[in-house]
């Protein structure tokens, strides 16, 4: 019995490993394509080093759950198990992209898959709270994930969101991936006093705000699993701060070492703490994984990712005559009258007669 449980745990770990490994390869392959080819002409914020949260979410989220992300959006897109071809094509600005080239990497959304993102820090958190309120009012048993970095906690809107979701006990999980940097500026240069999770805790009388090592995928997985379960039991909201690190540069494929905000030794320290490598070593030790198997997986994944990139390159750009109309719901550009709303007992019609006289 004990052995079975252990095996099932190993299976979960292996699934987590595969998810994180895939995401790492995906980001690395894209970042290799980013500059020399220069066909992805939009700011792309890679999440190399921050794979733990998205991989955990990937195993846990259901179709009807919602994810709201910041500009470092690829991991969250991936966590909703959405078609990655749509993501890659969007980076290339092509017709087949999730938003046909209207959004790009930092503004991508996939409404059919309940995934949204945006590049203004903390803005998407407010939107996420609204979705959670809607779920609560209409007794839906799903969760809303608001993912963001610690820089979003500089913003007032974040604190309004924390207050309100605690006030109304909303089914939302706030995940703060604390990678210590707002572009180049470290947290202690921008924030005072206690850690974010400690400050957030003060908004509730019960314990609902936590901090964990965000590079231990298994730990992150277990914690999020538990919190989602509690949220579904109407115990929300929860706040989770995961301490992690962005190995890639703020955006693009470099290391940012030339900027001077982080030292090479700091970077190397975190590369040693790489979430994927640790899990890989553990699984190899337990004889659940071998170098040969890893090579096989890598081959398979790389081929798939390459095919996404190739397809995106081959795809066409969307061309439109009238950009204005894409800003509004299409209805108003049709020449017909505004549609009647047919509702029993009411005859709502468009009233075009001119009114004279006050």
């Amino acid at each position, binding site marked *: 019995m004990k052995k079975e449980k252990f095996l099932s745990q190993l299976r979960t770990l292996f699934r987590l490993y595969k998810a994180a490994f895939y995401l790492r390869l995906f980001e690395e392959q894209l970042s290799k394509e980013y500059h020399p080819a220069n066909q992805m002409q939009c700011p792309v914020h890679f999440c190399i080093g921050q794979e733990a949260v998205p991989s955990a979410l990937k195993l846990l989220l259901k179709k009807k759950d919602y994810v709201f992300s910041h500009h470092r959006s690829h991991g969250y897109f991936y966590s909703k198990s959405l078609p990655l071809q749509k993501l890659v094509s969007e980076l290339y600005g092509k017709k087949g992209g999730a938003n046909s080239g209207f959004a790009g990497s930092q503004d991508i959304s996939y409404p059919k898959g309940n995934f949204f993102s945006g590049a203004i820090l903390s803005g998407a958190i407010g939107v996420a709270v609204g979705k959670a309120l809607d779920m609560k009012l209409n007794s839906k048993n799903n969760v809303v994930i608001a993912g963001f970095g610690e820089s979003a906690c500089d913003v007032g809107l974040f604190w309004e969101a924390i207050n309100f979701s605690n006030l109304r006990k909303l089914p939302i999980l706030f995940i703060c991936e604390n990678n210590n940097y707002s572009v180049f500026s470290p947290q202690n240069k921008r924030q005072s006093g206690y850690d974010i999770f400690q400050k957030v805790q003060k908004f509730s009388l019960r314990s609902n705000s936590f901090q964990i090592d965000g590079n231990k995928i298994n730990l992150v997985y277990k914690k999020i699993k538990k919190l989602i379960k509690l949220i579904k039991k109407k115990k929300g909201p929860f706040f989770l701060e995961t301490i992690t690190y962005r190995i890639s540069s703020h955006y693009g494929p470099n290391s940012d070492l030339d900027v001077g905000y982080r030292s090479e030794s700091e970077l190397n320290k975190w590369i040693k703490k790489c979430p994927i490598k640790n899990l890989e070593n553990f699984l190899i030790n337990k004889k659940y994984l071998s170098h040969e198997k890893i090579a096989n997986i890598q081959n398979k994944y790389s081929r798939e990712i390459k095919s996404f990139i190739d397809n995106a390159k081959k795809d066409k750009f969307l061309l439109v005559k009238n950009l204005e109309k894409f800003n*509004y719901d299409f209805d108003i550009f049709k020449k017909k009258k505004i549609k009647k709303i047919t509702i029993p007992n009411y005859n709502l019609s468009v009233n075009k007669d001119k009114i004279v006289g006050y």
Partner: protein
Amino acid sequence: MKKHLISYSRAINEALDQSMKIDRNVYVIGQLVDYKPGVFGTTSDLVKKYGEKRVQDFPVAESLMTSMSIGMCLNQINKIVLVHHRIDFMLYSMDAIVNWISLWKFKSYKDTSLSITIRAIVGKGWGQGPQHSKSFHSWFANLPGIRVAIPSCPYDAKGFLIESIFSKIPTIIIEHRSLFEDKQLVPINPYRLEFGKANVVRKGNDLCIISIGYLTKFAINISDYYKKNFNITLEVIDVRTLSPIDKKTLIKSFLKIKKVIVLDPSWKSYGASAEIVAILQKSIKNKKKYFIERISYPDSHTPMSPKLESKFYISEKKIIKKIQELLNK
């Protein structure tokens, strides 16, 4: 169509009431909306009929309130009405309006639209001062992706509100506090008004007044006065919606009458009146035969004291002076 005589604030209240009755997915959210006086009477009694779930008081967190409304209508079923007691307070929501709501549809390409109506009230008089009386209709009309209405009478207030609640386009409705007690015969049944249709409130041949918002009232009074006393007919056009704006009607009157005064209840520089003048100018070739003037607030903030305040706002006297100048040309 049966009509009854009701005030501007009652017309808004009726629009909300009827919309909420028609569709149980309509929500009204704003500070103090669930108290008896409501927001100047416009939300009174709604909570009694539709409950706290649908008529929600909100913390003094305008930023969150507006951005939250996006999340609330992502199911493409909910229709959200947000109420701001003053447009000045609404400015905390600028990020939500400008960076999120206005471009939400655009950046998602075509899969989502937002049924959000933002009611923003502009204060005037009795020492409202510089933080309670600004009107930003031209700011918002400048923004693609949202519509802006500035109803001048109860009939418009009701019709545009119902239209925007049931449409899929985010809309800002700017309501002038000084109009709230004005009464008019308004259809009892709910109705929708089309955006982008200006209203020729008075027909005339000698001069055309194009007015925005509450100044329409002034224009009508002046037009009636001229007709009665001098048999001079002044056409009055209420612009009603600034985005989209009814270029056709404005140009038609301008070409017919050749003399136009634009009244704009806001600052002159870079404002809505400038846009209207640009629209009119483009329609003509021989500029010498045509005259356009505009009257708006000075490029200054609103002072508090009654004496200074009356100097700031547009008076009928000031409009008449300009009309005389133009009539003599």
